Every structure is written in C-alpha cells, then in structure tokens.
C-alpha cells in the first residue's frame, strides 16, 4: 500500500488543488485507469476545496491499495449543522467572497458522493468534519 499525506491550509485558495493534483500524478504512475483517476481526483478536489473554503486547517491521507483507494479528509472548522441539507445540490453556506472566487456553488458533497463508492461523514458543530471516502479499483 502507498500512503500519501497532506496538510491543507484554510483560506489559501492559491494552493487549493495541490493535494489532488499530486494524488493524480501518483495514480497515473501506478497505471490506474484514467476514468477511475478522474473520479478520485474530482472527489478529492472537492473535499480539498471544502477545507480551504470552510475550515481553519485540515489533513488529507490517501491510501492506495491494489483493490481500492481510501481517503480520509479531516478538518478543524465549523462542522456541518445539517448534513441532509449539505447533501442537496446547490445548498451552500459559503461566504460571498468564496463564491466570488468561483467556489461554494453547493455542489461539493453531492459531487463527492457521485464519484466514490463509499462516503462517511463525521462532523461536530464548532469542532470540525472528517470525511471517509473509498473508491474501488476493480470496476472500470
């Protein structure tokens, strides 16, 4: 298994996407099918942007095994008050500034869910959120 770890800074939009781009490069080097890479990178990018847009700081850990890629995305931030609402397309709590930069359209969590096989959200309001994602590699 290959494990990749990243620290993510909240509010630093110029670096948003770095982790997902590194993961993409690694998956390419391992000959993982390009459509699976795309799913993983889209999900991870959304999760990464969530940290940047909403949280103070966070970490991403990606574990690549021959059968699946597991991702653990944890942040210290405001947490999610209503997960059902957050899962609705178009629902967003992002600030006006964040939206102006082209983020915060309310597609983050729904888009992540669409692109992975498993998604678990663990959130405590006022403390932070952790997202556990899994993408199976055997079905292209």
């Amino acid at each position: 298994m290959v494990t990749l770890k990243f620290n993510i800074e909240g509010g630093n939009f110029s670096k948003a996407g770095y982790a997902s781009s590194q993961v993409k490069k690694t998956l390419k080097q391992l000959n993982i099918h390009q459509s699976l890479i795309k799913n993983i990178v889209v999900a991870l990018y959304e999760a990464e942007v969530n940290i940047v847009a909403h949280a103070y700081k966070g970490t991403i850990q990606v574990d690549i095994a021959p059968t699946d890629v597991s991702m653990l995305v944890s942040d210290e931030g405001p947490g999610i008050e209503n997960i059902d609402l957050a899962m609705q397309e178009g629902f967003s709590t992002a600030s006006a500034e964040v939206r102006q930069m082209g983020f915060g359209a309310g597609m983050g969590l729904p888009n992540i869910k669409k692109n992975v096989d498993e998604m678990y959200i663990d959130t405590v309001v006022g403390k932070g959120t952790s997202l556990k994602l899994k993408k199976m590699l055997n079905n292209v």
Partner: protein
Amino acid sequence: MYSDQPFYHALIIDDQKCIRCTHCLKVCPTEAIRIVDGRVEIKEERCVDCGECVRACPQKAIGIDHDDLGLMNNFKYRVLLFPSVFFAQFPERLSEDQVYTALMELGFTHAYEVEQPITVLKELIRKTVKENTSPFPTISSFCPAIVRLIQSQYPSLTSYIAKVKAPHDLAAHYVLDNLSAQGIAPAEVGLFYVTPCVAKIAAVRKPVGETKSIISGVISPGELYNKVMAIIDDIEPADCSDFRKELTKEGIQWSLTHGETWWQNSKTMAADGIHNAIKMLERIENEEIENIDFLELRACDRSCAAGVLLPQNRFLTVQRLKSRARRFPSAEKKMQAEGNNPFEHLEFKVVTDEILPRPLQRFGPDIAKAITRMQRARSIMCHLPGIDCGACGAPTCQALAEDMANGEARMSDCIFIQQLWQKDGKVPPEKAFQRMEKKWGEKRFDPDCTKIGAKNESN
C-alpha cells in the same frame, strides 16, 4: 486502445566523445537518461526527442541520425524541402534568390520552403477546433516532441491532439502534385527535408498517426548551411521565385510561437519551452483551464527558431523571420482575393490517423506490483540524501529510488551511502572505489588535462 509501436529515436551517443558528465542527465525533462557501466543510456520509452540533452552536452557527444547528402544521387529529381527558420539562418545581406540558387548549386533540382500553401493547415485546424465540442481544447500537433510527451505522460489528452500533419508533409504533397503536373513521376523524385530539431527527424523517420513517411531523407541544417556559405559569394543568382510563390506571412511565421494561433478567431493560447508545456498540460488535464479552443505547445523556447540543430541564435532568427514576413502577402487575403482555397484538394492528404496513447509505465504494467514497487521506492527515499547530485547515474535521488525499486539500480550506487558505509566499516575503500569506476568508467578519475577548463578549450 494503446499504441504498441516502439518509439524511434534520432539520438546517437558517441562513446568516444562522451566524458560521462551529468549535463544531459540533469536537463532531460522526462528523466530518460541514466549512466550505466560507464555509458550513457537513454530509456527509450521515456525519451520524447526534445533535444534538450543535445543542447546541454558540452562535448557535442550526442549525434543525430542524419542522411548523407550523397543519398540524393539516387534520384533523377532531387527536391529540397526546408523550413523557413532555415532560410533565416543566412545573413540578411543575401538575397532570396542568392540563397535558393546556392542550394541548387549543391545538386538539388528544386527547393521549396515547407510552409506553403499554409492555408490548407489553417483551414484544417479551424475545422478541427470547430468540431471539438468537448470541454478540452484542441491541442496542436505541430511539435512532435509535444505529441510524444502527451502520448506517454498525458495519455488521456491524446484524443484532443489535432489530426493534422506537419508542414513538411503538406509541402511534400504540394510538390509532388506540382511535379506530376509537369509530367514527372513520383518514383523519380527524392524529397529531402532539412530538420531544425531532433523531434522532427524522429517524426519524419517514424511518423505518429501515419503509416509511412513521404520523405526520402533528412538533412542536417548545419552541414547544408556550411556548404551554402562556402559558395554563396560566387553565386550568380537565378530567378527562383517560382519555388516560393505560395509563401505567405502566415507560412513564414508558422513555426514561431503563436504561429498557429495569431490568425485564429477563436480563443487560443500558446506556450513554448518544454517545462512550460508540461505545466500547461498538467493544468489542462486537471481541467483548470477553461474556455480555450486551441492550444499551441512547442518544446523549444521561441519554438523552431531555437531548433537545436540550427546554427544561429534563436532571437536573431525570430527577428529575421518577422522582418522577412512583412515583405510577403497574407494567406488570408490571398484566399479572399482568389475567392476560395485553391489547394483544398490537398486537405485530406494532411489528415493523420488516430493518435494513440502509449502511457509510460514507471513501475511496470501490473497495478499490485506497481504499488509494492512505489512503496519500496518511497521507503528507499528515507535513506537517500536528497542532494540530487547525479553521481549515481540517475538524475535525482527519487529517480534512483525508483530504479532501485524496479531492480535496475542498487543502494551502493549512491556515493553518500558509500561514504556512510565506509565510515561504519561496512565497505573497504578499495571496494567503494571499484564501484565508482564501474559506474563512471575505468580511469575516469585519473587526472586529465584535455577536459574543458583544464588546458584545452575545444571540444
């Protein structure tokens, strides 16, 4: 579907001239070079023929697979095809006809600049861009090093490469058409192309997305330049304007940066220099760049004006081409005046077959094995110093770690690890030195005053 064609490479290492320094190793953008058992080795599946190693070699030890000029004697009609950047190598005091006549004096029966009639390529690119409804831009197929880079490192983008052949292919068809109109059979014609760079040679010898090349031979611009300059002052210029009657502003500047984009009316972008191209491809692959219809990427900084085989300075070449272009008509206006594109019938001849990806498999084809190997490489990296000195024969510590994980190198290749082992008494100094000599060649570490900077400045 992947391409199973091995890449042909035009680079030839001269082991006599090569002193095993690490210049080529360090500049290779795809980390394709290693030093093994006292020799430079090119990893065929990684090399994209960009020619950066040729530029960097202080010994001029990397040769090019050119054809002998004498090859033309096998043909009744000997046609020289050359890019406009080659014409721009000559001093501006020489007239167009002087240069053309000198080329004929060297034994050619015809001489054409390849960027004519460029309208065919312009229109074909326009059509391709229009037909592309995907969110990805159409990527120029002009620079063969970029096409190879995309095939091996950005396989998911290969389908966006324009299926358009190079100007030399266009010119070849144009010339053969012209000659057959004069009753000359193609079998009697030898087409010789002056290549500004390594990638173009590879593209001529083994075209991507074409079954067979139309060119009979590739000629070194350096050699031809010297031969022309040797006779040019005694040349009585003849009227050769017929050979360049389809030459236009656009054609002359086609091989410069923005050459394919500046006349396009859609949203375009151009980047030159292989490292800039890599950054751009990375961003395109990440879908970070939106609303671009056409992307021109060139491996050399200043595009073909910087062709590694050309004798003159790239900035001077750009300046000469630009000032020369002012004297020629615009292809756009010419087409408008003529009401249609008189060379439309050539269009289908410059469409390539599907360009297939050939993804680089760094750790082999099997995913489970690749993961194990990558993990091994990452563990090895804990022990390597991260100095990236190249003394192991690999360009970086990470490249060495990957080679080790693939069973192609050993821990003892690292000279710092060797030092550590010697300090700890694990390896006798004699043994450590033997290993170095094996890597870099016997007597490589004896004093040698012929090296540059010692008592000899020539190479």
